[in-house]
Structures are given as structure tokens and as C-alpha cells.
């Protein structure tokens, strides 16, 4: 068995020796040029003049381009054609690229990029959700509404009603490797692009348009990214297009990488939300109706905001059957960076909404929040008498959380610890502990149905070595190793026989972004199809050659058994080659059973759901809001894991990143729309000591496994939302300081917790 083994990351030995090659490490031809953007210094206005003479006069500057110099389409958007590479007559956010410096070194380009003199007619800015709402500045003609039953009536007639509104901040991806691209002009006018991207096909498409070539003339290669997290789904377009345009203009190789501050100022982040809610429930905490209003800060351009906001709506139920629900989503356009994909893709924000409702309701009734949650859970598939329909009409047929929750409550010793914490809190005045649970039910599939397809290309060479290529990209998640394990499993050979090569649009075309946690589900199946095709051809030929039935051919332990004859895999490959058997195949897969209408909010957007749950314990100081995670217990359902070590790595890392989003990671803009937290000195992702002191992570052995690659489940995004338990635990700790509900906002920075403590004490 190759799958299910806890093998290390395929590049681990390269990582630890510094040999793993990223875009910035690729040896460059001697005449390579380097690029930097000159940026807008205001958030909104009309450009009245651009004086670039000082830029031209800088050492090493070869050329400077503005929008007028671009030969073809000036667009780097994901889909909406609303995002120019270089600003035309208008700028829409502080930090928008206005001109492009082409110079002989990275530093020369950076120095020159600061020397432009741009005059503007400033216009009023929309920097907050309130401003955008008041100005009716939005994408789409009005709010999207998904509805089931009559929420308003159900709430009005409920025994208990709660109502509140809270803020959810955005999040900077902070991939350790900044955005980077390299363009090498080819002899026939074509372009080879190396890009740190989750989406090579989109880079290919955008570059082709920008330099007026068909897609076949542009080849994009991506061996690995130094982290992506959604931030390299569309945000790499600008660099690759800039490199291609500059390479076409100069005939020389061009490279661009953002300095960290530029990266944070230019690129999009997670969408900030304000969620308002009204919920009605009975004395036992069973919800009868919930109304949500999502105000979504999409920034200045559409990018992926519509599907992000949709996914937030689609996770507004999380794990709970809500008989009557109404979700209204406003996609607001502001003069900030254009918010983009980020791990969870709106799901975390939507889920935080309903988890907040659960927490608030439990506080209101004074019952245990886990008890209340369990009462509202979707039914187990074994329980046929209860309807299990989501707000968008999909039946939940694989609900794992009953068993998973019970197992986690046991393993974490929740009930005893909760009592101990309550006791501890009675003897401590300025410092309180808190503990909280949160479950995750996360829908797996791209909601844009056509993206749920993937391809692979497998070659078996005559010496029995195997070359594997597929449409996914490696950003650290271990996708390549998992797919090598799949290929090794198909042939029952050792994984070392498999050579995994860089994602390459020349090998597998028309790929979807490696996103939506879909990488191993989609590409794994495509790899299996390709391997099975070759194996079937080999088996047929070997059966014919040795005069036996095809069913007597077995691929076993790095060899092939044909009746009473045994060949090594290498011998079998050689024999098939001399027998003129094609040992190369593509594979293709599309997810079955999907059907989705995003306007109506009805259908089956997801193939299946991934589940998990977490319990986090924290401590908070009321005087300063200083706080810390003491312990986290995570139990997560990865199906029949393709590689438990890599999956646990995803779960641990996602939890810490999710907790960071809701605690220390705060984005701050000033009144000019100038991002003040544009470097790790001011934007604080979790550091080493911020991980929980006690950190128990386990995989759940579930019952209801989807028909996926070896019945494994997607694991990239779902555990990110386990971090919600940390935020709820902070709320629980704060609630120990007084009678009122904390009404916590996110991120729960020390200052926010300090404020919440005052609210609790003084009942505000």
C-alpha cells in the first residue's frame, strides 16, 4: 500500500538543505531585467498628469510603461475585466499600480518606482462598509438573498429572540515567499512564464491576452510556491503580465518580485465582513429561525468576491438544521485593496456568523454551548425521520458530527475541565480562563461547477520509471506527494519510482486553480484514470504475450504476476515497450452529481462535506486584554487519509492560521486609505509561542465516506475554521468577568478583549 502511508513531503530534503528552488532562485540569463510598480498615493481620484522624468533619470532604468504603452488588453482581473494592470485615468485604492519600471536590477527598479510625480483630482473615498452602503456602491445590482421558510415570522413567534451585529476583520495571507514571476521570450515570439501561482492556466490566459498571442504560444510552469493560501489564485496575474509585456517590449527576460511591503500594499486579502443577526429559539435552545445580513468588503475590484460571498452564505448554517433562515448578502465596493481568495473562501466568515448565534443563544439561556449546538445539529444519516435540508436545498447525507463530537468531548475531558475552569475563575479576579467548542461542516467543490475538472499525464518509461504530471500546483500542502502515492498505488510500485514534475500548461492544459481544497480530490482521480489506462494496456499485452487470461495479471509489490510468471515492474515495462504498447496516457476527471443555481441559491453545489471539531482553552487578563491559548484539541475527518502525516500537518497549521485571523492579525488603514500594517513589524501573524501549549490533533475515523480518490477527503481549508473555537473561548473567558454578553468582534486583539471586558462588567 502506498496510500495511507505517513511519508514526508516529497521536497522535504530539498527544503531543509536550501536546495528547493522558488521563482527568485531560478538562475537568470545575464541580460535579465527587473520590474517594479509605481503606486498610487491616494485612494480615489482622477490622474491629471504623470511626470516620469525623475524615474527615467534613475540609474539602471531601461524603460517606464504606463497604461498608454500597453499593446493589447490592459487587464489582470480573474474574470470581470475591471482590473487594469496599470491604472488608466482613475485610481481606485491607495497602492494601485500606475506605472511600470523596467530596470537592470531589483533595487534600481524599486528606487526608480518611488520617483514618479503623479497629480490627481482627489475624489471622495469609500473606506468603510457604512460609507459604501450609504453610497449604494456594490457589485451586482442588489443583495443576494438565499431563503428557506419564513425566518421573520419564526423569529417573531419564538420564545427567545436575540439580535446583534459584529465585525469580522480581513486577513493578510503572509505567504513567506512574496509574489514573483519571470518571463523568458522565446524564439518564435512565444513566452515562457515561471510564476508563483495557484493557477497556471489563468496566468497563461491573461498573458496571452496581454501580448496578443493565442494560448498555445504561452507556456506557464510552476514547480512550487512558498505558500499560497488563496493569495496566489489571482494575485499573481499582475506580475506575470507585467513581465510578459516588458519582455515583449524589450526582447529580454524580465523578472518581478514584490518587496514585502509592496506585496502587502498591492495585493488583496481576506474579505472583511459585518454580520448582523436575529435569531429565535425555544427554552431548550432549538432554533426556529435565523436572519443574517452580510456586509462584505470586496475592495475596489470584483476579483473573486461573488463566489466568496456566496460561499459565506452557503456556510451560514454550518452544522445546524435551521427550519427557517434568510441570508442577505451585500457585496460592497470600497476604495481598498480588492479582497480575494483566502483559505475557506468566505466559508469562515459565514460560519463565524452562526457560531456567534449559537454562543449568544447559549449565554442567553445559560445552558452549555455544546449541548445547545448538539440539539441543533443536522441528523445522523441513520436517523431517517428528520429532514436534513440545507438552506439551499441540498440534503446532508454524510453528517459525521454526532460521533465526532462525542469522541472529542471524551478525549478532551471537556466536562471536567469546564467545571475546573469555572472553579478557577471564582478565585481569580483579573485573569479568567475560558473554554469553547466549535464544529465544522465545510462544502467540498467549486461552486462554479465547470471548475470541477482535472487532468493528468502519466508516462511509464521503458526502464520502469514513471513520470507524473497533473493540473494541480504545490504550495506546501503536499499535493505532489499524495498524487505520487496514488500513482504508486495504481501500479503497486514503490513511490520512489514516481518522478513528480512541475505544473506545466504544456503538459496538462485548461486546469482549474489549485483551490477550494480540491487539489487531491480532482487531480488524484485524474492521475488514477491515467495510471489505470496504462495498467490496463500493459495487462492486456502481458496476458497476450504469456498466453493467459487478463484477469491472471496482477500488479503486486513492484512487480507483475502473469499466471505463474513473475516480472519486475521494470521488466514488464521493457516488455511492453518492445511490444509497441503505448505507455503514456492522459487522465481526466469531473466531479459527478453537481448542479447549482447561484442566483436562486438552490441545488447541489457540493459533492460532499468535510467535518471536524475543536475545543480550545484560553486565558485573558482583564486589565490589558493580554491572552493566550493554553490547550487545543482537534479532531478532524480526512476520510481515508491519503497521507495522515501531511493531513495532520494541514490541520495543525490551519488551526493556528485560523486562530491568528481571529486574534492578533489586524489590518489597519488610515483616513487616506493607506494600509498601516504593511509588514511583519506591524501585522502580527502567530509566532512560535502562540501555538497552544498542549496541542492534541487526531484524525477521525468516519462512517460516511464519499466516492473520492481512495475515499479520502479534502483537508486544505476545512480545519482553518477549527480556529473559531479559540475566538469563542476568548468570549467565554471574557464572559466570566461579568453578567453581560461580551459582544466580541474579530479580531479579538488585546484591545478588543479589554473593551469586551468592560462591556461585560458594565452591561453595555
Amino acid at each position, binding site marked *: 500500500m502506498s496510500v495511507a502511508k505517513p511519508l514526508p513531503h516529497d521536497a522535504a530534503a530539498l527544503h531543509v538543505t536550501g536546495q528547493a528552488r522558488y521563482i527568485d532562485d531560478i538562475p537568470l540569463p545575464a541580460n535579465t531585467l527587473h520590474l517594479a510598480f509605481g503606486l498610487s498615493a491616494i485612494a480615489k481620484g482622477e490622474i491629471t498628469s504623470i511626470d516620469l522624468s525623475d524615474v527615467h533619470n534613475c540609474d539602471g532604468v531601461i524603460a517606464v510603461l504606463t497604461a498608454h504603452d500597453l499593446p493589447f488588453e490592459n487587464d489582470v482581473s480573474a474574470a470581470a475585466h475591471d482590473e487594469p494592470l496599470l491604472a488608466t485615468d482613475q485610481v481606485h485604492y491607495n497602492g494601485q499600480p500606475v506605472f511600470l519600471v523596467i530596470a537592470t536590477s531589483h533595487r534600481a527598479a524599486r528606487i526608480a518606482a518611488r520617483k514618479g510625480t503623479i497629480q490627481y483630482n482627489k475624489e471622495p473615498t469609500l473606506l468603510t462598509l457604512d460609507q459604501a452602503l450609504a453610497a449604494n456602491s456594490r457589485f451586482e445590482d442588489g443583495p443576494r438573498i438565499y431563503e428557506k421558510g419564513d425566518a421573520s415570522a419564526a423569529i417573531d413567534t419564538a420564545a427567545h429572540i436575540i439580535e446583534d451585529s459584529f465585525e469580522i476583520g480581513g486577513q493578510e495571507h503572509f505567504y513567506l515567499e512574496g509574489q514573483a514571476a519571470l518571463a523568458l521570450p522565446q524564439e518564435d515570439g512565444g513566452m515562457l512564464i515561471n510564476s508563483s501561482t495557484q493557477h497556471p492556466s489563468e496566468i497563461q490566459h491573461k498573458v496571452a491576452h496581454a501580448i496578443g498571442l493565442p494560448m498555445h504560444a504561452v507556456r506557464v510552469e510552476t514547480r512550487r510556491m*512558498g505558500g499560497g493560501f488563496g493569495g496566489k489564485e489571482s494575485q499573481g496575474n499582475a506580475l506575470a503580465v507585467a513581465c510578459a509585456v516588458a519582455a515583449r517590449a524589450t526582447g529580454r527576460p524580465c523578472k518581478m518580485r514584490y518587496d514585502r511591503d509592496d506585496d502587502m500594499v498591492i495585493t488583496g486579502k481576506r474579505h472583511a465582513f459585518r454580520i448582523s443577526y436575529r435569531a429565535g429559539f425555544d427554552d431548550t435552545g432549538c432554533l426556529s429561525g435565523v436572519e443574517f445580513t452580510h456586509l462584505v468588503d470586496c475592495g475596489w475590484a470584483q476579483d473573486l468576491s461573488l463566489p466568496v460571498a456566496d460561499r459565506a452564505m452557503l456556510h451560514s448554517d454550518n452544522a445546524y438544521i435551521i427550519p427557517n433562515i434568510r441570508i442577505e448578502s451585500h457585496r460592497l465596493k470600497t476604495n481598498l485593496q480588492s479582497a480575494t481568495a483566502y483559505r475557506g473562501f468566505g466559508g469562515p466568515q459565514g460560519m463565524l456568523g452562526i457560531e456567534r448565534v449559537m454562543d449568544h443563544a447559549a449565554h442567553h439561556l445559560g445552558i452549555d454551548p455544546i449541548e445547545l449546538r448538539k440539539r441543533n445539529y443536522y441528523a445522523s444519516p441513520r436517523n431517517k425521520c428528520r429532514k436534513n435540508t440545507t438552506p439551499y436545498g441540498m440534503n446532508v447525507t454524510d453528517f459525521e458530527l454526532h460521533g465526532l463530537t462525542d469522541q472529542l468531548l471524551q478525549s478532551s475531558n471537556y466536562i471536567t475541565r469546564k467545571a475546573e475552569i469555572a472553579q478557577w475563575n471564582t478565585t481569580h479576579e483579573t485573569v479568567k480562563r475560558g473554554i469553547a467548542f466549535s464544529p465544522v461542516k465545510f462544502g467540498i467543490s467549486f461552486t462554479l461547477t465547470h471548475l470541477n475538472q482535472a487532468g493528468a499525464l502519466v508516462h511509464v518509461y521503458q526502464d520502469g520509471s514513471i513520470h507524473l504530471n497533473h493540473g494541480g500546483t504545490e504550495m506546501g*500542502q503536499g499535493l505532489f506527494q499524495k498524487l505520487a502515492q496514488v500513482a504508486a498505488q495504481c501500479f503497486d510500485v514503490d513511490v520512489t519510482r514516481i518522478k513528480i514534475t512541475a505544473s506545466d500548461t504544456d503538459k496538462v492544459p485548461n486546469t482549474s486553480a489549485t483551490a477550494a481544497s480540491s487539489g487531491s480530490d480532482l487531480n488524484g482521480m485524474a492521475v488514477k484514470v491515467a495510471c489505470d489506462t496504462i495498467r490496463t494496456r500493459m495487462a492486456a499485452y502481458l496476458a497476450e504475450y504469456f498466453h493467459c487470461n487478463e484477469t491472471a495479471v496482477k500488479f503486486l509489490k513492484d512487480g507483475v504476476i502473469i499466471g505463474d510468471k513473475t516480472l519486475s515492474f521494470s521488466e514488464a515495462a521493457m516488455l511492453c515497450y518492445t511490444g509497441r504498447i503505448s505507455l503514456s496516457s492522459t487522465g481526466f476527471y469531473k466531479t459527478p452529481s453537481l448542479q447549482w443555481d447561484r442566483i436562486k441559491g438552490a441545488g447541489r453545489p457540493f459533492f460532499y462535506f468535510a467535518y471536524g471539531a475543536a475545543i480550545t482553552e484560553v486565558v485573558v487578563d482583564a486589565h490589558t486584554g493580554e491572552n493566550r491559548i493554553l490547550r487545543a484539541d482537534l479532531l478532524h475527518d480526512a476520510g481515508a487519509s491519503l497521507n495522515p502525516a501531511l493531513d495532520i500537518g494541514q490541520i495543525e497549521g490551519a*488551526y493556528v492560521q485560523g486562530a491568528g485571523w481571529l486574534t492578533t492579525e489586524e489590518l489597519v488603514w488610515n483616513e487616506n486609505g493607506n494600509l498601516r500594517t504593511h*509588514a511583519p513589524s506591524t501585522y502580527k501573524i502567530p*509566532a512560535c509561542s502562540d501555538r497552544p501549549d498542549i496541542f492534541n490533533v487526531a484524525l477521525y475515523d468516519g462512517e460516511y465516506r464519499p466516492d473520492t480518490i481512495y475515499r479520502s477527503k479534502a483537508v486544505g481549508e476545512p480545519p482553518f475554521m477549527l480556529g473559531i473555537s479559540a475566538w469563542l473561548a476568548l468570549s467565554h473567558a471574557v464572559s466570566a468577568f461579568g453578567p453581560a454578553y461580551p459582544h466580541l468582534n474579530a479580531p479579538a486583539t488585546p484591545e478588543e478583549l479589554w473593551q469586551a471586558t468592560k462591556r461585560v462588567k458594565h452591561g453595555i
Partner: protein
Amino acid sequence: MTITFHLNGDEVSVPDIAPTTTLLDWLRNTRGLNGTKEGCNEGDCGACTVMVTDQDGPKALNACILFMPQLHGKSLHTVEGVANPDGTLHPVQKAMIDHHGSQCGFCTPGFIMSMVTAHTAGATDHDDQLAGNLCRCTGYAPIIRAAQAVQTAPVPKWLVTKPTQPQDALDNVMRPLSANDLAYQYAQRPTATLIAGATDVGLWVTKQLRDLDDVIFLDGCDDLKEISVTQDEVRFGALVNMNRVRETLTPIYPSYADMIRRYASQQVRNAATIGGNIANGSPIGDNPPALIALGARVHLRKQNTRRAILLEDFFIDYGKQDRSDGEFIEAITLPRGQDALRVYKVSKRFDQDISAVLGAFNIVIDQGYVTAACIAFGGMAAIPKRAKHVETALIGKAWTADTIRQAQSAFDADFSPLSDMRASALYRLETARALLARYAADLSGDHIPVLEVQ
């Protein structure tokens, strides 16, 4: 000027290089050693960490804000140079593979170098050793498991660093070899930029993109790295790095030393000097409030004229200090006495974060009455500043809850802090008040720091 040092065991000489070329750029652009990564280019992420060995032993340093002349006479190891040339991995490298300590791998070389340095030095306080290395993928747990797994493994023989060669004269115009040398050189070029650890000046080059054409590197002045501890005082030469300050103060002023544990990161503390932290005059430097609360004096020298002033008088206004052109800090002295000092650093993140508020309290209570009080804050004003109204409200009064409450209201008279990305003005002011209460609880043994809750 030729810079000479050992690179992964081999001696290299680098002639004719711009003095503010960073080690990171030289490694990557000139030597083609691409294992050392650029993550932030400001010393906050640790992806560029290298191991530099000098007479004090191995140190992890950030290559992105380390200028080439600072390497002169030292031994440098990069991630390419820690495995045995025969291919055998360093135990730390092997453990990182076995414990799944890398995912995207971009931060990994920096982690390896911090871990190798800690391993070589025998350090096992892994969270502190790695506070300056950011990882966005793993959540750190597997990295710590790797570090723990090999902490008792012997240091590989192949990594034993060669003794550093004698300090030959690099060029004593740019790199004086004593305080006297420096005094002379600085008098000749009183507007030159003095570079000690470069943890601040480094950013002038990498972020502000400034060209510094007239620089003096202080690293060769060994006589400014001396520490003396007597019964009455502690004297730090201006070039004592922050890790040595921490080590020295641990038994003397443990609260101050514990704050230094959270001051920047291991890499930055290895480079940053106490003199540099004072001289740059930042309103958010973490040393000055603690030193002011202790009544520390700064010893200034211009050619052969020396003067000593109270540190609190050194800070005049934002960006303005009591230091004339050509005058430099030679030493800091702080009196020893009864340890009533407590230093509280409040920041969004515990480790490696600039303080929103830093409060240092030194209050003497005799038979229930406050006989002396020195309280200083960072992050509350344009300079590190004493809370004199608060002190006045305390001195001569009985040390009671009432007195403390009254003194808390005096903070408004001392400070009108700003709101910025770290905290609001209100939070700063209220936190400052709260820290006085924390101090009282601390003295009576009732304060429970959240960092110590198990």
C-alpha cells in the same frame, strides 16, 4: 577595503564592495547561494537567518539587515553549509524531515539555521530561540517536535567552526578598532552614520532605499563591548548586544531581563546593542523606560571630552536627543539597589512585537509608605518619558489601594498618547493606569501573568 571571513568553512575575501551591501544580497546575487531566503527584508521573519560565529560563539543573525563589513573576521554558515560534505544531514535537518517540519519550505532554511545555532550552543528554550522565525504553514508544532527530538544529539564534528582569524585592520577609517579610534574618526566626520548592529540602520537601506555614503562600523571596537558589574552599579559598554544585557541582568533585575526575552527576537537581540537602542531615540524602544526607572546614566564622548547625564535627560523631543555631531555613547550605567523594578510590555503579540505600551515601575516602599518612585513609559509620548505626576501622587503617601487609585488618575496629566495601528490612545492610557495596579499586585504576590498560567 577587503572583507575577510569564513564562508561554510572556506576563507573568502571580498574586495571593493559597497559597505551597505547586505549579506543576503551578496549571498544570493554574487555567490549564487540561494538557500538563504528573503521573506520581509526587515529582520522580522527570519527566512534569511544565518549562523555567524565570533569570539562569543555562534549567533543566529538576519542576513537581510547585516552589512558585509560586519562579517569581517568571523565565520559564517548558511543552510548550504550545515550538512556534511559527504551528504549526511545535520541532525536538525534530518529531524525536520522526520517530524514533517516543512510544508511550503520557504521559511525552512531560516528555521534550520536558528535551530542549528541553538543546537550548537546547547540552547533548549526553543520558543525563544525561534521567536524570530515566522512560519505560515505548519503552526510550529512539528518544528518544535523536531527541535526537541535532537536537543541532546552531539554537535556534528564537521560543523566545528574554525577559530576566527586575528582582527587585521580592515580599514580603520570605516571600521575603528577602539573607542579612541572611533573618537578620532568621528571627530573628522561628525555627520557619518554610526552602525552598530544595523537592526535599525539596515532598514534605512532595505526599506527607505537610502544610500549611506559615509558610514562608520563600530563592530571592531571591542572595548565598547565590555560589561562590568560591581556592588554599586552595572556598566554596559554601548556595543553590548541585547542578549548579553539580558544575561547580565537576569540575576540583578529579573523583571527587566524577562522583558528583554520578548524584545525583538533572538536574531535581532544578537545584533542590536544597548547603545544603539538608546541613540536612535525611538519613542517605542523598550530599554529606555526600564533604564530611566532605574536612574541610569548615559556616558557620552566627543573626542576626549566625556560627560554623563541621566538617561531621561538625553531624550529631548521626537527625533531629538542631547547629542552633538561627533559625540557618541560610550556606556550606560545603572545603579544597583533593592530590586523594586518591574517592567511590563504590552503588545498585540507576545513575542517579537513592538510595544503598544511599555511601563517600568521602580517604587520604594518603607514601612508602608512610598519613599521614592520612578515610573517611565514607552509608547505613551514622543519620547520615553517619566510619569512625574503619578510619582508625585505616590511619594510620601501610604501604599494603599486608595493612593494607587488616586495616582492612577494622574496619568492624564502625564500623557496624551496617540492612536495608531498598535493601539488607541484610550487603550494606551487605560492600560498605563492598569499597569500601576498590576505593579501593586505584583509586589504583594497577587499578579498572575497570563504567560505563566498553565
